[in-house]
């Protein structure tokens, strides 16, 4: 059902956890639907220096979360914004058709975290 890469990320997820005082956080999905993804990012000089996730969901949800964190670490915000559900799924050698919405969530959570960071930056500028 799942590619070896999916199983690898599911069994040994990278970057699980929370970041203390993150630069930005994103959370998508809800428990009623059966999947929630939370992503924290740390940003320095426009670069994502650290990223962590917590996910409630199926193997695809966990694997895509793990994969997305690996894909963005060390990338610029602009590069991170290019990541789509499609690129996450491809990086995992594909997902079963019924699981495509999980990869959707991973990219969405990342973009939500970046947006959160941007908003905070904008607020800082506004205050100063």
């Amino acid at each position, binding site marked *: 059902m799942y590619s070896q890469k999916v199983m690898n990320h*599911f069994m040994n*997820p990278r970057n699980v956890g929370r970041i203390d005082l993150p630069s930005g956080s994103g959370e998508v999905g809800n428990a009623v*639907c*059966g999947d929630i993804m939370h992503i924290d990012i740390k940003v320095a000089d426009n670069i994502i220096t650290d990223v962590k996730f917590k996910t409630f969901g199926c193997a695809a949800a966990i694997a895509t979360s793990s994969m997305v964190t690996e894909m963005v670490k060390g990338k610029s915000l602009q590069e991170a914004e290019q990541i789509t559900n499609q690129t996450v799924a491809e990086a995992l050698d594909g997902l079963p058709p019924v699981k495509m919405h999980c990869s959707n969530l991973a990219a969405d959570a990342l973009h939500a975290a970046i947006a959160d960071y941007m908003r905070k930056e904008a607020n800082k500028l506004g205050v100063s």
Partner: protein
Amino acid sequence: MREIYMDHSATTPVDPEVFNAMIPYYTDRFGNASSIHTKGQRARQAVDQARSQAAELLGASEREIVFTSGGTEANNQAIISYLSNNPDKGRHLITSAIEHHAVLDAFLHLAKRGYELTVLPVTADGLVEPDILKAAMKPTTALVSIMHANNEVGTIQPIKELAAVAHAGGAVFHTDAVQTVGKLPIDVEEMDVDMLAASSHKLYGPKGVGCLYVKRGIRVGNYFHGGGQERGLRPGTENVPGIVGFGTACKLAHINLPERQTRLNKMGQRLKEGILNSIPHSRLTGHPVKRLPGSVSVCFEFVEGESILLMLDSYGIMASSGSACTSGSLDPSHVLLALGLPHEIAHGSLRLTLGKDNTEEDVDKVLEVLPNIIQNLRGMSPLCN
């Protein structure tokens, strides 16, 4: 790695003795049971013998058994053909909210065709209460169908009482006994059901065969259209090896049932208590005592079913879940929701169903690895810290 199969409600291995009984019917005694020649007649005798073995397990007589391709067909035929053959009966139907789709979807099909359908609620333990059925009966109720035991949460229904209520109201009573035939003693006379569906692969018989019990005098009809097999009630060349295997499985179940029931009850009890005691935020689903022998269904908060299954599988432990979202739908099963479980809890369901080949060591192994798996997954979950 030893394989620990704990998914016997999904399907069972064919018993080697059953398989041995089937072997001759593939390459040697392969005749068509409708043929007049020797090979045909030998196949016919084999089918007849299997019929008497199935009848004996159910407490039925041979003429009351119709072989089908499985539980789905048996249920469909019971419900749909009974109604099309008894157009003089009323057009109100009753079933329960926790039926298998083979029953529920047959009724939904009929509802679209103009029948009035009542879907009874169940208690938090998954019981259909006879009083609730009684209140739902109408003068026009033609058919009531309540499953003997539920495949997901294992709850056993008070079939005898429910059948009595249906009969008192003038309706015919069908039960989907796919999960109980071979696991619980069954006597159709004593239960007083009019129709009962069984599936071979749930009792160590082969897949692709099952039967429908139809009480003498109840006019069901054929669901397939074609040849005159099964006295016209089931057209299509008989699956002779499959039927022989099913018959043999019935014979073995009849012999081994009491011992297996006791053993699985005991082993299931230990598994259940071990899980609930060692894993916080876990709860049993289904009835605490009125449950299928060896069936343990639980929900774990903050985690999702498929993840649990795949983690268990990596230890060689094979189980199932009412909430593995493979079908593209994110909803947990209709059964868990009908029990009143909130979505977010139903999402973390796990079903372990023991069988005759499981050992106490298998139970030990699950009790050893499951707590860590749940802890691990909870460590990744944003829902708990």
